[in-house]
């Protein structure tokens, strides 16, 4: 019985972590859309915002249907509130992306501020001689090699969300986030 409860809690927390991670990814993508003045990325942020709404509702329903004991209820109220916060963060990200979708040319200071920030966003095009070409993201081991993680891949007009078995093509633009120091390593890998 106790085990069954723990499993249930585990599912709730896992869904929450998905909310949290998605909201943070959205911030990074939103800043990326400004940096590249990219409507595709900005649209991806808006799509994720809709996905968040759905996920958040599912999360709340899941918590509500969990029949907590009284002494557990308070601790899960905290979790419900955390869920609300992830929505607020997602809204803020959507607000940033909206600037791009409104057709406002991002002021150069925005790009400068993003590039100079501690956790920076960078993008780089994969050239033909890159060791990354035709590898899956799993094989490419970019986080291990550079400390940067891939937020999105721009392939022509399309914006692809990275999965471990996504194959990197020549000409892809990799959009990555991480600490400024990893930027150069990523550039070297993508365009040696």
């Amino acid at each position, binding site marked *: 019985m106790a085990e069954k409860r723990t499993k249930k809690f585990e599912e709730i927390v896992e869904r929450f972590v998905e909310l949290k991670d998605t909201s943070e990814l959205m911030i990074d993508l939103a800043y990326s859309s400004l940096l590249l003045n990219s409507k595709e990325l900005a649209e991806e942020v808006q799509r994720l915002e809709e996905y968040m709404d759905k996920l958040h509702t599912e999360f709340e329903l899941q918590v509500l249907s969990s029949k907590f004991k009284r002494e557990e209820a308070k601790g899960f109220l905290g979790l419900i509130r955390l869920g609300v916060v992830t929505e607020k963060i997602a809204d803020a990200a959507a607000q940033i992306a909206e600037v791009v979708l409104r057709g406002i040319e991002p*002021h150069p200071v925005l790009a*400068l*501020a*993003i590039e100079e920030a501690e956790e920076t966003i960078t993008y780089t095009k994969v050239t033909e001689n890159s060791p990354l070409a035709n590898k899956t993201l799993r094989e490419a081991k970019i*986080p291990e090699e550079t400390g940067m993680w891939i937020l999105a891949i721009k392939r022509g007009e399309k914006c692809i969300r990275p999965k471990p078995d996504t194959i990197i093509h020549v000409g892809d633009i990799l959009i990555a986030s991480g600490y400024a120091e990893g930027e150069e390593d990523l550039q070297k890998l993508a365009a040696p």
Partner: protein
Amino acid sequence: MPPFEKIEYKPVTVREVLREMKNLSELMIDLAYSAALFNDKDLAEDVLELEKRIDTLAYHLEMTTMVAARDAKDAEALVGVSKVAAAADKISDAAADIAAIVTQNIGVHPIVSEIFERVEERLTKAKVDEKSVLVGKEIGELKLAPRMGVDIIAIFRENDWIINPKNREKVKAGDILIARGTHEGLKELKELCEGKLEKLED
């Protein structure tokens, strides 16, 4: 109610203020989640302090952009800046909401914290063992970001939090570090702290 800081116009560098707002708002989110998960009131209070700082920055930024816009064209160019600053402010408000869960004694169930620590891969807490190679080293010389893509965002030492520690800060035995970064990097950092890994790899 705590007193609000009086606002007077002073010209600021938009780029610098935006950068600080972006840095602080993201730092606050990580600190706030840490405060909630480790149920740490002091850390939560620090997040609320940072929130006030962002509010003040937002005022200054907004006044500067107002003064900078002389015509419709300027206004079009600057409205994006103003919106992005407002979004960073909103993110810091969200962090303060998380901190309030802790300061208002609502808290998060220990089961939640336990599961969360297992499934969340971007944030970790580690205690520095006395036999760890990190002891006595300056944070800057460890070069954690280029080496493993992680950043130490706070240190708990002698009942106090050091937020966003400077490069010159030395790691001491018994420190509790809060770090964020890649999953692989955080695992490595944890092993370094515990003394299981004895060498910093390049």
